[in-house]
């Protein structure tokens, strides 16, 4: 199972990556939405986990872009962010985000969510 982790913070990328790798997921990493889209054109992944606030292209715009692409129908996208405002969540939901995890998150909680989506 391949997971694309998108976050402008390297440490978060590494942390999420390590957490997922420990459970045998194959992890790809991108630093922002533009990079992530670029990555997705060449690589097929099973799940995208993205930060919300990023330079160049933020998480919600990334979700919108992914949803526009018919080839990626059904690709789950999880938002991983410090933001917990209802309005933001709603915006993400409408954009087509699959789920939402609030930072700081427990590693096992992240794994549980990922497992549920990818089962």
């Amino acid at each position, binding site marked *: 199972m391949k997971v694309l982790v998108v976050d402008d913070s*390297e440490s978060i990328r*590494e942390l999420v990556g390590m957490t997922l790798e420990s459970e045998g997921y194959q992890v790809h990493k991108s630093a*922002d939405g533009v990079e992530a889209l670029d990555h997705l054109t060449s690589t097929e992944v099973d799940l995208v986990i993205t930060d919300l*606030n990023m330079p160049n292209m933020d998480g919600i715009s990334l979700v919108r872009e992914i949803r526009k692409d018919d080839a990626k129908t059904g690709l789950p996208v999880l938002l991983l962010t410090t933001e917990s405002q*209802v309005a933001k969540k709603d915006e993400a939901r409408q954009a087509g*985000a699959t789920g939402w995890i609030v*930072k700081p998150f427990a590693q096992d909680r992240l794994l549980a969510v990922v497992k549920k989506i990818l089962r």
Partner: protein
Amino acid sequence: MDSLQHIFIQEATELLSELEEALLAFENNLEDRDSMERIFRAMHTLKGASSMFGFTDVNDFTHELESIYDALREGTLKATPGILELTLEAVDHLGEFIKNPSHEDESIKKRQKTLLEKIKAYNTGLTPTAPTSIKETGNPSLATFYISFTPGKDILKNGSNPLYLLEDLLELGKGCVLPAFPHLPGFDTLDPTTCYTSFEVLLETEHSEADIEDVFLFVADGSGIKIERFVKPVTLTEALRQKFLDTLPSERPLGLEKVKGLMEVEELPEEGQAVVAKNSTKKNILPENKASLNSIRVSSEKLDALMNQISELVTTQARLSMLVNGLEVAELGAITESMSKITRKLRDNAFSICLIPIDTLVVRFQRLVRDLSKELGKNIELITEGTDTELDKSVIEKLSDPLLHLMRNCIDHGIESPAERSRSGKSEKGTIRLEAYNSGTNVIITLSDDGAGIDPGKIRARAIERNIIPADAELSEQETYQLLFEAGFSTAETVSDISGRGVGMDVVKRGLEDLHGGIVIQSEPGKGTKFTIRLPLTLSIIDGLLVEIGENTYVIPLHRVEKCYEIPATLLTSIHQQIVLDGTRMPVFHLGEALQCENTASTLNQVIKLEYEGKEVGVSVDAIIGEHQVVLKPLGHMYKEQEEFSGATILGDGTVALVFDIDRLLKKLISESVKNVNYGKLSYQ
């Protein structure tokens, strides 16, 4: 986890420096939206990362700061110098904090508290921002929710399973699920891929409403979700559960009112507790920063390894070329030649990877000038030019301290107070210029101020007083200025907090010498002082001049060589070893003698003119072999006392040649000749 912590600390340090840079830019122009966005983003990223790595204090801190800048961004708060001052202070504090996370230091703790209070003071009166996740999860009190979930008809087709969601819900606490299927069609029209069931859930949980919403974020738009919270928590006893489960399927869905009736509680849901979608007013920020897209980060160890391998390649290539030259096989010669071309290109490319612009240092300087000039009540502007000039990463790292020290000197001793300046007819605002440019394989950095300048008379008096030179020494102006770099020399009349930190200019010079660089001072009393620093572009591979002394081969770094001459030995006078070349008189040192070599040639000397501390000095060798690309290898432990050599290199034929450290060599030779000859009489200019 440790390596992750390391990555975090590195990242946080970078973010803080980005923050600082943006803050300084913002201070210059309070209308600058770009800087504001940069500040906000850096804070946000720092907040997110710090919360994940257990730096809860940093998280609290950045959260409060972020609120201020959010308000600034939204226009509900106006930017003032006070806010910026406070933010800069906070950034400094965070920097120390991250470096020393155990924070057992009481003073840091105390400062943390006062700073946090100050920041909070700005935040009171602002509309509260969304609660942080910490506050959200930190509420342990039980609450009871009524959740109605009507999955969209297509939910099964999209690959979701509502039962998983219900499972998730029940994981949050204790509760019961009541399914209902009021719209179930007859068997003949039933579509097995359509979901006809809806659910009502009663849940008693410690989790917040947001957590419950989280569960349903997996659900597409078509589903209906209603979450209501009972003002007073109701304990879901077994009896109560049974009461719900006993309701007939035809009665369901029960609806909130009926549920309440069954619970026999007269409660109204709190206002605003229902999930209401608010229209987001915040725009997504998409700064036009495409530059960062095309770069990747590589650990410096990997780069060092790459450089090392390329060095090996260069050496091996040289050997191959040499071998092939002797063979006279035309085809092989052509191949070797093109390979050597490629190797050279590869070397240059690998170099440029390790080069970073001086820019990275400038932020620190800008901050220093700003802080110090405030502290000293001076009005100083820092003008930088050519800071995109690149230097090897390792050079930049080691350059920081010497440059900072010089900068401190300019601010503290160089630039006068505004009153003094206007008295001497200058503008009140002092200027410090930092300029950098490439010059061959050197990079020249000049740091100049338009301050009081340095009085050579004062230096001389002080040097005599400190027994650095004898009272009757005759020194040129440049030599006098070089005295500033002698250990134990300080011209500051009182040791001030700023430049007198127990580190003298001698440390600056030593630092630069370690980089194989040099420094020259020019000064004019009343007009200002100019430091000119010369640095080699890189430390590991240099172009060298291969020379023969005695039976051995040595390398003189080519970037120090100005000119080569062939001189009959008789022209070199034996006492002072002075010679006039191209109209300039200069001392000449015979390296063969200095190195105590036997069989040195005597009839004809090759004299190489070198530059040393702004003067010209000659050294004589037996023969000049030619140019050679030198891969500098450190000398082993045994040779660590041999200061006049900076390293060794392997030549094409496999022999080893020592590489001179010109500055240290000449320093040693000059000081030895001073011992032999009276200082006052030796004049090398």
